[in-house]
């Protein structure tokens, strides 16, 4: 029987899941994914997580607990840096050690992912992770090569305008040919951490809601790396965290696009970087005359508040547009 490797459907799942799935499968393991977030998973997470962390980290606790009974190993790398000369939020760094305190968990694959000095940090992490399953170095190298290829394809699909769930459906051949989203009357940019905006439970289905109200949703993940990095470099001072850079770079790029009618920023309550990037983006959006809405999500957000704000925001955007035309 193959070893079962559990991967929680949270945090950087939305960026790197296709890669690690192929990697572990090429090594002969079976990948078990936690189910999409639900009230129960979040409740489990809230019960077990420390109080100070942000909503998505609390949710991760719930996902990991769900995997405890299903997997032999849980893949929970200690992510230090995913870009050269940049760090990622320190909560990612502490995550495996926070989770380790939970009872009844299988062993964690808590390898360090550190690409601060150079990009080979990813391969080092893969090597260490692979050793949990096989001691054959060549097999690991081969699996890593396949995984990289898949990852490139996945990022290309995202840049075509697909959402992570749609792109993954294409990667796994669950759909023949995923249609690109039909262009709608207005384009709305949705900026936020990937694990907040793409998790349909904690984001209260914001993407589907915006689409059903007649908007095409654009996100930071649709912007190619070169472009958002160039835009983020326009800031007087570099922002520390990789994801914050990505968000602000993409926001600045979209602010210059004339076909964009509005921008929505989703912040998690208790997220330090969000409170800063959100405010920075708001100032730039205001200066550019772009309609801007800031939504804060936390564990007891009522759906009604989000719906009212989104509705009013889209009314405002469409009203403005109707008068300009």
């Amino acid at each position, binding site marked *: 029987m193959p070893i079962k490797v559990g991967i929680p459907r949270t945090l950087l799942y939305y960026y790197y899941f296709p890669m690690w799935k192929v990697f572990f499968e090429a090594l002969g393991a079976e990948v078990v994914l936690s189910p999409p977030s639900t009230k129960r998973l979040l409740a489990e997470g809230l019960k077990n997580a420390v109080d100070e962390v942000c909503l998505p980290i609390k949710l991760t606790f719930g996902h990991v607990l769900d995997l405890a009974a299903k997997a032999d190993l849980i893949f929970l790398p200690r992510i230090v840096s995913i870009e050269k000369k940049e760090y990622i939020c320190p909560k990612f760094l502490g995550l495996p050690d926070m989770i380790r305190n939970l009872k009844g968990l299988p062993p964690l694959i808590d390898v360090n992912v550190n690409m601060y000095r150079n990009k080979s940090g990813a391969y080092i992490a893969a090597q260490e992770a692979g050793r949990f399953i096989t001691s054959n170095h060549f097999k690991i190298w081969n699996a890593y090569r396949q995984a990289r290829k898949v990852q490139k394809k996945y990022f290309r699909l995202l840049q075509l305008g697909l959402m992570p769930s749609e792109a993954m459906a294409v990667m796994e051949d669950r759909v023949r040919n995923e249609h690109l989203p039909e262009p709608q009357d207005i384009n709305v940019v949705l900026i936020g951490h990937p694990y907040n905006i793409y998790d349909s439970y904690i984001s209260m289905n914001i993407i589907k809601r915006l689409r059903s109200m007649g908007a095409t949703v654009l996100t930071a993940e649709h912007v190619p790396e070169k472009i958002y990095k160039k835009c983020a470099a326009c800031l007087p001072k570099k922002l520390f965290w990789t994801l914050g850079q990505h968000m602000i770079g993409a926001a600045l790029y979209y602010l210059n696009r004339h076909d964009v009618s509005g921008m929505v920023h989703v912040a998690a309550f208790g997220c330090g970087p969000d409170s800063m990037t959100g405010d920075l983006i708001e100032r730039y959006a205001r200066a550019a005359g772009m309609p*801007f809405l800031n939504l804060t999500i936390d564990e007891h957000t009522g759906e009604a508040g989000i719906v009212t704000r989104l509705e009013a925001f889209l009314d405002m955007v469409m009203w403005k547009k109707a008068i300009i035309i």
Partner: protein
Amino acid sequence: MKGYIGIDVGSVSTNVVFMDEDGIVRDPIYLRTQGQPITAVQKGLRKLRESMPPGVKIRGVGTTGSGRSLAGIIVRADAIKNEITAHAVASSTLVPGVQTILEIGGQDSKIIILRSGVVSDFSMNNVCAAGTGSFLDQQAARLNIPIEEFGEIALKSKTPVGIAGRCAVFAESDMIHKQQMGCDLSDILAGLCEALVRNYLNNLGKGKEILSPVVFQGGVAANMGMVRAFEKALRLPIQVPTYYNVMGAVGAALLAREAVAKKGQSQFKGFLVSDTEYKAGSFECSGCANQCEVVEIAEGGIIIARWGDRCGKWGNVINQKEKIS
């Protein structure tokens, strides 16, 4: 006479207005919701019918406020819109050229910025209800003065005391402290008004350009102490429109007029709504771990609408024969 009905179902009050074809508002009705939105809507419609001359034709109905979907289903409204849009539409029609709308209701407060007749920015209070009508109500009750006299007493003050208005809980202890020190009641009330205005402008007005004409509406606009505190803080004249407490309903009526003009005819059920028996019930769906609270509305024992489910399993399919649970 022909006209449109606007219904605003808020957390504290339910307002119904009749607006004739020329946009003149007649018969504003202001009721307390008292936790029973359905009954309040029925009562409002009954009162409206009694106050109207015979032979009036209803061309359309619009609903707004936090209970808008519930009310919209009961009367089969032509327009169901969020309160921000409704308030903006009403103000810009009744007060031409308005650039800033301050709105403080029972449990929420909002600021709407308009430029050349179009909403350009808005903001709504978050989870915190400090500084809204309910808090003023509660304080008036604690000091044993009728809420209607609150403003008048506050106006008598010459030297308002300083009160911390960041949080309703702290504001209350600060007020008690000042009262025990022997400060004059009118000075305490005026100080409270100023604290609430400060809190409002810090929370909602942050970064927004507040330009004259400024309109102050919502139930709290009846409080002259608040009006004066706003004038003092903004150094701008504040207008309180005639129908300040039913502006949402006026907006809903205007939106209904627009919707009917587009559609051709109204789908209003008629005044018999107020004599039909409606029942609302709810149950927890056990289909998945989300355990959504599904709300259902029955008309004469037959379910006419359901909502609250994330997946659409209940909301989309309504079996007409089903009985309410």
